[in-house]
C-alpha cells in the first residue's frame, strides 16, 4: 500500500494544476465558481482551450484525441479541473455521444463527428428521457420509421439539459415496436436540431433557471447514415454510455471547493460571540462533512485503482449515490450559513445564489439514474439481492 502519489503522478498533478490555473482565464473561472446559470460561451471557450492542449476528451481512444492515462491520472485531472473552477468539457459531447460514436460509429461518422464534438463546434444534447420513460428508460415511445434513405421521427423527449444551446441531439428511438422485450427494438439516432419538425420548449425549474427543455419531433426526416451502429441495438449503446456517465460521477473536486467556500462564508458571518465558524454546531457539521468527503474521495481512488480498461467498476453506483448526497449536503450547509441573507434571491453574491443553487441541486439525486436506482444496482448487481 502507498498513500503518496508516485513522483510521476505528482508531476502530472502539478502540470494539470498549472495548466488549469494559468491557461483558462480567471474571469471565466470566477463566473463558473460563482454558480448560477452557465454562460454557453464560457463553456465553449474552456473546452476549446482544453482541446487545443489535448485535454478535452482524455478518455476517448487515443487516435481520436484521447490520452492513455491511468484511472488515477483521470481522477487527478478531474480533481484539479474542479479545484480551479474550470467548466468541464460538455458531458454530452465528451462523456456520452463521443465515446459511443468512437466505439460503435462508422468510419464516416467518426471522421465527421468526433473532431467537432471534441472541440465543441457541435453542441450535443441528450434525447433519452420521455414523459413516461425516466428511470424506466426502456419504456420510451418516440418512434423512427424507415422511409427510403431516411428515418421519420415522431414523439417527445424531456429533461433535455442545455438543449437550447444545442446544434444536435442524440436520441434513443423505437425502431421496432413489435420487439419481444421493450429493451430490444431501440436505435441510437443523431438528429440536427435545425431539421424541420424539431421543436424545443423550455421547462422552468424551481431555481428560476432555464436548464432543461422538452423536445418535440413531428415527422422529422433524418438521413439514414445518422443512425449509429446497428438498427435495434441502441439499448446496448445506451448502457455503454450510461456506464461511462458514472465514471467520475462523484464531483469530489467541486464538493471540496464548495466546502472550502462554505468555511470562508461561515467566517464572514457575524454572530453574538464571533463568527459562524466559531459556532460549535456549525463547525462540527463542517468537520463531519470534511471527514465524509475524504471518505468519498478515497473510495473514488480505490475504485479507480480497481477499474480496468476503462470498464466501470459496479461500485461506481456507490460513488454516484454518495457523491450526490454529499454534494447536496454541502449546498444545504451553504444555505444554512447564508441564513436570513439567503432569503433574498436574484443577485450573483454567494448569499443571493445560495438558495437557488441548493434547490437546483436537488436534481443530483434524480438525474443520471436516481439514487433509488443506484441502490437497486448495488443491491442486485453487487450484493446479489434479486427480488
Amino acid at each position: 500500500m502507498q498513500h503518496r502519489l508516485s513522483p510521476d503522478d505528482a508531476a502530472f498533478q502539478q502540470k494539470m494544476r498549472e495548466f488549469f490555473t494559468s491557461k483558462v482565464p480567471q474571469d471565466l473561472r470566477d463566473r463558473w465558481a460563482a454558480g448560477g446559470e452557465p454562460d454557453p460561451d464560457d463553456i465553449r471557450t474552456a473546452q476549446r482551450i482544453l482541446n487545443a492542449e489535448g485535454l478535452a476528451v482524455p478518455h476517448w481512444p487515443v487516435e481520436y484525441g484521447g490520452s492513455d492515462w491511468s484511472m488515477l491520472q483521470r481522477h487527478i485531472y478531474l480533481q484539479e479541473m474542479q479545484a480551479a473552477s474550470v467548466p468541464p468539457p460538455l458531458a454530452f459531447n465528451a462523456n456520452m455521444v463521443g465515446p459511443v460514436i468512437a466505439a460503435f460509429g462508422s468510419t464516416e461518422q467518426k471522421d465527421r463527428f468526433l473532431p467537432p464534438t471534441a472541440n465543441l463546434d457541435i453542441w450535443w444534447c441528450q434525447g433519452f428521457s420521455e414523459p413516461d420513460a425516466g428511470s424506466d428508460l426502456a419504456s420510451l415511445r418516440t418512434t423512427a420509421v424507415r422511409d427510403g434513405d431516411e428515418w421519420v421521427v415522431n414523439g417527445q423527449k424531456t429533461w433535455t439539459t442545455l438543449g437550447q444551446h444545442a446544434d444536435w441531439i442524440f436520441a434513443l428511438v423505437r425502431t421496432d415496436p413489435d420487439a419481444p422485450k421493450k429493451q430490444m427494438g431501440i436505435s441510437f439516432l443523431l438528429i440536427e436540431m435545425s431539421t424541420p419538425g424539431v421543436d424545443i420548449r423550455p421547462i422552468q425549474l424551481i431555481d428560476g433557471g432555464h436548464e432543461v427543455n422538452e423536445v418535440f419531433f413531428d415527422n422529422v426526416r433524418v438521413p439514414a447514415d445518422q443512425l449509429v451502429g446497428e438498427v435495434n441495438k441502441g439499448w446496448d449503446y445506451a448502457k455503454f454510455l450510461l456506464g461511462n456517465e458514472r465514471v467520475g460521477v462523484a464531483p469530489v473536486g467541486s464538493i471540496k471547493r464548495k466546502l472550502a467556500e462554505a468555511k470562508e462564508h461561515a467566517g464572514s458571518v457575524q454572530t453574538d460571540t464571533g463568527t459562524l465558524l466559531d459556532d460549535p454546531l456549525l463547525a462540527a457539521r463542517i468537520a463531519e462533512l470534511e471527514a465524509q468527503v475524504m471518505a468519498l474521495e478515497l473510495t473514488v481512488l480505490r475504485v479507480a485503482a480497481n477499474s480496468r480498461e476503462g470498464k466501470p467498476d459496479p461500485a461506481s453506483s456507490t460513488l454516484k449515490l454518495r457523491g450526490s448526497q454529499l454534494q447536496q449536503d454541502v449546498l444545504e450547509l451553504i444555505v444554512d450559513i447564508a441564513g436570513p441573507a439567503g432569503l433574498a434571491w436574484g443577485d450573483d453574491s454567494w448569499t443571493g445564489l445560495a438558495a437557488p443553487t441548493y434547490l437546483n441541486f436537488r436534481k443530483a439525486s434524480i438525474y443520471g439514474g436516481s439514487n433509488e436506482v443506484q441502490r437497486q444496482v448495488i443491491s442486485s448487481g453487487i450484493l446479489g439481492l434479486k427480488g
Partner: protein
Amino acid sequence: MDFSIDSEQKALRDAVRELAARRAPQHGEGDVPVGPAPHDPDTWSALAEVGALGLPFAEDAGGLGASAVEVSLVATELGHAGVQTAYADALVAGSVLAAASSDLLSSLVDGSALVVPALAEPGRGWSLASSSVHASGSGDSWTLTGSKGPVPYADAATHLVVPAAADGGLALFLVEAPSFADGIATFDGSAATQLVGPADGATALAAAVNLGIIAVCSEALGAMDAASTMTFDYLKTRKQFGVPLMTFQTLTQRAADMYVSLELARSTTLFAAMAIADDPGDSATASRAKVVVGQSGRHIGQEAIQLHGGIGMTAEYAVGHFTTRLTAIERTYGDTRQHLASLASSLSDHDQVDVLA
C-alpha cells in the same frame, strides 16, 4: 496511491484469519456470554506467536519493523471473526514503551506481559490533554494519586501505562501490578516509573492513541463487513409471506446503504493506516477515520439487527455481538463527538482536506 497489499502482507492476513477462525466465539449453543469478553491467554499467545504484537515496533526494540498497515490487517481479521482481545490496548501501551525505550516492550511483544493503557477517568469525558491523576516525585521515584477507569482487561493486566499531570505537563508512567475495583484503578500514592516526561508526554500519547485508533477502526471494519454479509445472506434466504426478504425493496435499498457505509469506511481505514504508518502524529486523519468508522458502525450495526428482525436481538446469534462491539469501539479512544469537536476546532488550519498531498 495504492490500496493493494503485497504477498508478505497477504501471508500475515491469512495466518491471522486462520487463527481468528479457531478462536472465534461459537454462537448458537447454550448460554452465550454478552458484552465485553474477558482476556483469553490462549488467543493472546497465539497472537504473540504470529508476531502480531510486535508488528509496528522497530526491530532493535524487539518488534518486527512493520507498520500500522499490518496492524490494520490483523485487527480486521479479529474483528471479522468476532474475537475480542486487548490487541489495540497493548499496541497503545507498546507504542509508549517504545517511545521510552523500555525493556518491557520485549515482554509485551512475546506475550509474557499484558500492558494496557489506563486512559479514561471516572466522571470525565475523553481527553488526551489533561489528567486528574497527579504525579509527584523525580528521577526514579514517582508516586501517582487519583483514579483511572474503566480500564479494559484491567483484571488480567500485569502493567498499566498511565498519563498523569506532572510539573510541566502530561507525563506517562508505568505502574506494575495495579489494583482494581470494578475496572477502576485507584492510585493512592502508588509507586510508578516515569516512561515519558512532560516535555514529550502529550506527543507520545497522541501517537500511541493514533495507532490504537487504527487498530480499533480496522477491527470495526472487520465487524461491519461480517455483520453486513450476514445480513445480505439473511435477506436472500429468510422467507416471510412465502417469499425471500429480498423481494421487499425497502429492505434491499437499506442493504445498499449499508454497503455504501461499509465501502467508505474501508477506504478511510486503509488510508488512515497508511497515513499513520507514514506519520504517527497525524491526529487529524486518525480523527476523521474515527468519525467515519464510528458513524458507519452505528449505521451498519443498527441496520444489521433491524433487517434480521427478532433473531438479531438474540444472544445466540452473532449479529448482535458485532453491534455490541461496534458500539464499544465508537466509544474507545475518543468518541465521535470528541473527535468532531477536535476537528471542528482546527477547521481554519486548512482550506480543503488533501489526501493526495
